[in-house]
């Protein structure tokens, strides 16, 4: 954690995330308008009264945007958690237990990996009809764990060979303890990357499903905002604020998460780091203090 704060990418990423989280938490305080009430005329451009203009229905875009952050974050984190938990548990079990269990888990994992995800999601969401954010999070969780299993498994396979796992076995540690206390702590960075990656994926997938009209229009979320804007032909009638606001919000959230992910990667894998030493090095070389 402390290392994260020393990483420039992480700091920027975290700042973006904290901003979005704060906005989500304080949504009701940040705006005087209800996100589901008509508070102005349709498609008003941004103004003092409506910072980001109004939607086709006369809802305040800014208000919908800050309230929508809650849903997007909740779905992202919820689904991300589900994906990560399933992926990590299955991955560790497969990697550690080996044998038939591994074969079975691995087969299913590879299979899920080769079934195209979004089309499947589309069909599932259509099947459910009115996919509330909760439902979307659950579907995402149960269809998208495969990548996590794959990386966790392969990392577990290599950790299982380490002598400290062997010696724990020789001490007679029970299997679950080895998986939970010997292997898992060494997977933290992979799990973290998986978690954040899954959040990114879930946020994107939710927005996509909702954009395609498979979400629940009662929701106030960025995906539904996109959907409504698209349906109101926001682009044809020149109401760019209606469409671009959720677009940029999604892009910002994605960027924040990706920066943090990248930073975790750098911390877990010191070789990837390009810290301050390089700057110092360049300084010293150009000062003629030495060379390679």
């Amino acid at each position, binding site marked *: 954690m402390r290392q994260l704060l020393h990483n420039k990418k992480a700091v920027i990423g975290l700042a973006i995330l904290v901003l979005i989280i704060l906005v989500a938490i304080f949504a009701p305080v940040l705006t005087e308008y209800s996100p*589901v*009430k*008509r508070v102005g005329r*349709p498609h008003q451009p941004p103004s003092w009264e409506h910072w980001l203009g109004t939607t*086709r*229905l*006369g809802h305040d875009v800014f208000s919908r945007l800050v309230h929508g952050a809650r849903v997007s974050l909740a779905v992202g984190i919820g689904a991300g958690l589900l994906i990560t938990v399933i992926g990590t548990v299955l991955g560790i079990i497969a990697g550690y237990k080996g044998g038939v269990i591994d074969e079975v888990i691995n087969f299913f994992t590879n299979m899920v990996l080769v079934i195209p995800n979004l089309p499947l999601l589309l069909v599932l969401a*259509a099947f459910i*009809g*009115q996919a509330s954010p909760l439902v979307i999070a659950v579907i995402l969780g149960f269809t998208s764990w495969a990548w996590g299993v794959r990386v966790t498994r392969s990392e577990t396979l290599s950790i299982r060979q380490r002598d400290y796992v062997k010696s724990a076995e020789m001490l007679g540690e029970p299997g679950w303890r080895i998986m939970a206390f010997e292997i898992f702590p060494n997977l933290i960075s992979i799990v973290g990357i998986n978690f954040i990656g899954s959040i990114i994926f879930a946020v994107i997938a939710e927005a996509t499903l909702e954009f395609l*009209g*498979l979400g*629940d*229009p*009662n929701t106030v979320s960025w995906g539904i905002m996109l959907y*409504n804007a698209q*349906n*109101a*032909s926001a*682009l*044809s*009638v020149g109401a760019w604020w209606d469409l671009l606001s959720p677009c940029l919000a999604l892009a910002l959230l994605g960027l924040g998460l990706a920066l943090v992910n990248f930073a975790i990667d750098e911390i877990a894998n010191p070789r990837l780091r390009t810290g301050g030493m390089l700057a110092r090095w360049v300084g010293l070389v150009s000062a003629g203090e030495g060379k390679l």
Partner: protein
Amino acid sequence: QDQNVLTVSSEQTTTYVRNFNPFGQTSARATTLDFIYEPLVVFNRLKSNEANYRLAESFELADDLKSITFTLRDGLKWSDGEPLTADDVVFTYDYIKQFPALDFISVSAQLASVEKVDDRTVRFNLNEPNSLIANTIVGMPIVPEHIWADVADPVTFANENPVGSGPMTEITRFTPQVYEQCRNPNYWDADNLKVDCLRLPQLADNPQVLAALADGTLDWATSFIPDIDNTFVAKDPEHHKYWFTPSSLVSFQLSMVTPDENNRKAFNDVNFRRALSQLIDRQTIVDIAGYGYPLVNDDPSMLGELYKSFANPEVATQYGQYGQFDLDAGIAALDAAGYVDADGDGFRDNPDGTPIAIDIMVPNGWTDWIDAVQISMESLTEAGLNVKMSTPEAAVWTSGLIAGDYSMTLNALASAANPYFPYIRSFNPDDFGKSRFTAPHWENAEVMDLLGQYTQVKDPAEQKALMDKLQIIVAEAMPVIPVYNSPSFYEYNTSRFTGWADADDPKYSPVVSNANPARLLQLLDLDPVE
């Protein structure tokens, strides 16, 4: 000499499939009916159902209303040169009996038999007396016996090279992106036909149609277009025109048989329904959800502007206020009828204290309806009602409506030539559990009796008396809460063709969708600009 090509958008699709089977209502190209298979008669809804005789030169309803006789024009020919005779008509009706899946307008069930009187005359014998049967019969395309008799499976037959009776039968070009349909070399009314070919570019959605309209490619289209004055007309105000005519009735409906016992109590109370109706801000819905295009329908008898020639003025004076948006009046009416918050949860309850919780069901993806519901919910909520919206898949919605297994919904009912049709479709108990148009499951023996009589009288005065009575009963009970009549979209471009129907000359409905047979009349009226 150059051909006159009329560029039309009549359906939206991502790819064209060569299918001109006139019985394939959803799979055939939208230019199949009317343009390839000409109707016997086209009834003009805008002119009190005036008959425009096409293949038939006349028809005669028997005095007992138990049969109807159509007489074909002399010298009719199919586009391949074969004569078109009464045999083809009889064949067609035998054919749809043999293959029920072809009978997309359910006409067979009303016919006892179809017989050829002579080469140009066919008599339809009816099961029940019916003064309106001609409207139904002309909806079935007549197909050439010499072609279709050999078709093994007419349901899946794609009829790629149609032989028809209408003005435009020759498919000269067909790709997934565009097809062209040109004049029938043997068309009986060729003198009136100035257009040589129709060109139909594939357009997938409203924005694409708008783009094609805006740049002047399309001559004739039917598409929802947002903010049409700015996005289309302003591009070329001299030639870019539109005229939206009211059609389908969109109304809020409550299920009288809803599974929730408490809701059922309220829904079956006319005072509750009236109050609800007063809480619906129709104008805002039309303005915002509908871009101002639909026509408000505040007629408690649900007929509205569309059937205004049939209207009983009594309705407006007696019950007119129940169709008007009036928040205070609605609230007062609820209070007066005892719908107050009994348990203190902030929502109104039944007079006996049981809670009311209304779930307004709209099909997923039907955005304008969803918007309409959201707008309505604002005032309903403000009046203290516990309402929310659910948006299941259209199929779920449909089956819910059919079974009456919902609490509240928006429903649409296609327009027809005569108010008889909206009434019979909405209230016929025989259709309960079969059709979503009977979604309210509202039963009224008197209404059914009057509707039965209506088909059995021929005298217009008698008909009017019956219709007046019907309207009063319906308006008093208010089984459906009308909101608006959605528009039929019609956009056109006068730079290449003239002769278009419009608000100044509402000669017939010029909408080019395949639900409007009068589009044939429009086609024949077009003149190329020199």
